[in-house]
């Protein structure tokens, strides 16, 4: 039976789909489309009615669709080191025109199916059909897909169109690009960068701007050594907001629309409040949802937090969860035996592998740092500057620990699973010390594993499984104490 998806989740999916579709449509109509870092003040772009795409969200989607490796390699071929962030590599390859595409025969214009792809064929009783020749399970042809190859949109666009055959070939090659939304976003006309979320962002966006010869609007957030954001820091950021507004006015030829800005702020605040409300449902024991879902819902927080539809969709999801509590149900597909905080970004290309041992051991993720990090509310431009100053990688370790320990206590976790993310040095760098603090302050065991948010080459399933099992056994021992 197909998995039932709640109205809230469907609404959230639609919000993100619409953001992508609207950007494609805007581009078609000759309007400007920008690319933005996830925690750039989207309220500013909303005030100018600009369509904005989010490379981090795009890269996560590409990685989850298993095209992270080919895109990362494409960036490496362009000269980017494989030590830099996987999201950055995917985004830079995309900005350079590289695309994951489906292999086809140029003569027949038919896709070439990868015989290794697809799911095992099952008979009417649900048993796997074995090929008598090879002794291996047969593949279900309906689930088989073409080989993945790398293509280049600039190369395609430069192809001649003098004969019918050439036109057909060019169109087919264009259509062969993977059809999912993240592989079909428009090229940028400008970039919006705020380096509060990570310090690799600055060079990443500078590269895109140079590669595509487009304006870069930059908001620099220095690392914050204190828990409170000082007034001078707020002044520094506020002045950059003013400069960004001026740049956007020049770019669009429009005046800054105060009313639209205030409306976007209102929506962003409502989205944040409803996001927090959803996250807070994980405090229930057992939780009415799989906390891993929050990672998927981050797409809305990133791409649409200044839109009314996102605020409404989170409201709807909160309503669904309330119903689950009343009915004693959960979206978690197994009984919750243990509750953990999952620290870091998931390994998107290996999501099923990540989830498998958690499911087998009854481990639900009931805390993620994104909850407090994106649940910020403000009342004016200065407060907005202060709010944007605080992101997971721009705050000091004391603030980082306080955020996490707060949510661990509220959401009653038994342990912490830490992703040492090869893509994210600033995030992973202080985790060893944080792990020590969690164990000391909360008395819960922690386990760390190596992986990557987008590059599957940095993850080893056997190592991960052992660490999860070890964590479960340590949580068990801790409970017995």
């Amino acid at each position: 039976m197909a998995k039932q998806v709640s109205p809230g989740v469907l609404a959230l999916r639609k919000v993100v789909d619409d953001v992508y579709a609207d950007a494609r449509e805007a581009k078609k109509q000759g309007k400007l489309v920008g690319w933005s870092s996830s925690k750039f003040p989207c309220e500013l772009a909303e005030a100018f009615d600009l369509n904005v795409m989010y490379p981090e969200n795009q890269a996560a989607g590409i990685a989850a669709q298993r095209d992270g490796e080919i895109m990362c390699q494409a960036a490496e071929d362009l000269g980017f080191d494989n030590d830099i962030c996987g999201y950055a590599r995917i985004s830079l390859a995309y900005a350079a025109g590289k695309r994951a595409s489906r292999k086809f025969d140029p003569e027949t214009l038919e896709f070439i199916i990868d015989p290794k792809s697809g799911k095992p064929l099952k008979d009417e009783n649900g048993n796997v059909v074995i090929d008598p020749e090879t002794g291996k399970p047969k593949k279900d042809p309906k689930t088989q897909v073409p080989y993945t190859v790398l293509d280049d949109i600039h190369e395609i666009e430069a192809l001649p169109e003098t004969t019918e055959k050439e036109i057909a070939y060019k169109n087919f090659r264009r259509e062969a690009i993977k059809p999912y939304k993240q592989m079909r976003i428009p090229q940028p006309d400008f970039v919006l960068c705020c380096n509060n979320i990570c310090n690799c962002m600055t060079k990443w966006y500078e590269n895109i701007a140079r590669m595509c010869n487009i304006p870069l609007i930059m908001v620099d957030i220095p690392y914050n050594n204190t828990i409170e954001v000082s007034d001078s820091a707020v002044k520094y950021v506020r002045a950059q907001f003013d400069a960004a507004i001026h740049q956007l006015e020049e770019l669009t030829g429009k005046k800054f629309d105060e009313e639209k800005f205030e409306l976007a702020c209102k929506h962003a605040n409502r989205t944040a409040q409803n996001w927090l409300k959803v996250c807070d449902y994980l405090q229930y024991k057992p939780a009415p949802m799989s906390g891993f879902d929050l990672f998927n819902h981050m797409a809305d927080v990133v791409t649409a937090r200044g839109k009314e539809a996102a605020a409404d969709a989170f409201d709807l999801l909160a309503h669904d969860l309330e119903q689950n509590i009343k009915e004693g149900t959960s979206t978690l597909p197994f009984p919750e035996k243990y509750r953990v905080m999952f620290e870091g970004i998931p390994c998107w290309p290996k999501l099923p592998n990540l989830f498998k041992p958690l499911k087998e051991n009854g481990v639900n993720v009931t805390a993620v740092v994104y909850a407090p990090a994106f649940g910020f509310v403000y009342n004016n431009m200065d407060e907005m500057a202060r709010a944007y100053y605080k992101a997971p990688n721009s705050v000091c370790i004391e603030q980082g620990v306080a955020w996490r320990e707060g949510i661990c206590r509220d959401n009653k976790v038994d342990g912490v699973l830490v992703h040492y993310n090869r893509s994210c040095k600033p995030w992973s760098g202080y985790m060893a010390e944080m792990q020590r603090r969690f164990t000391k302050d909360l008395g819960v065991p922690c386990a760390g594993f190596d992986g990557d948010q987008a590059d599957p080459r940095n993850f080893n399933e056997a190592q991960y499984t052992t660490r999860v099992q070890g964590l479960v056994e340590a949580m068990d021992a801790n409970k017995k104490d």
Partner: protein
Amino acid sequence: MSIYTMGIDVGSTASKCVIMKDGKDIVAKSLVAVGTGTSGPARAIAEVLENAKMSREQMDFVLATGYGRNSLDGLADMQMSELSCHAKGATYLFPDVRTVIDIGGQDVKVIEIENGMMKNFVMNDKCAAGTGRFLDVMARVLEVRVEDLGDLGDKSTKEIGISSTCTVFAESEVISQLAVGTDKCDIIAGIHRSVAGRVSGLCNRVGVRDRVVMTGGVAQNHGIVKALVDQLQHEIFTSPLTQYNGALGASLFAYQKALKKQQ
């Protein structure tokens, strides 16, 4: 009536089995120097049963651990991670143990123990440096047997630094040392210090508490143990049974499970 349990530790480079009686006495053990994906596990099981003069059917509970613990189709009643099993085994050998350092074929683990139970642990990252595999590679380059590394390192008279933490780069560093005529024994002592440096970093992350016990095959190399003692400034205890420690722990857990089953 006595309860017989078997612990199987299918590692990446060796397969070990231990049969115990009533969770107290070791009846038989076996070790085959190849691990998961080979004939090693089956041979180790056959050997331990033969040594004990018993059959699989006479085992009240069989518990598997180690890297290849999931590959024993139907041979084991249950599987557990090698972390808990090493903690259990070390507690059997040294009841007051607080810290276990286990260097296996491709994993390094440091386990914090409280009241005989695993409280917390840290493992190596996705890199073979500091593991048994690292020593295998070095022994091959130096044309010596891995089991002789400890004795050869003792003969060192000069301190040579092997600075690379990466196995591949360390290998070329060793080759460069050999090319300039550096004494093998000095190189080996340098390798021991390099491994100890990497492992002590993990130890310090968990926090080292006495008594410290080292398990796994690498614990048989007294050069590594000595280098670790120097780095950590804590006495380290080992036992001739260190390589069986995971299987021993598995057998002890199997006893607990067998008792539960009987209830």
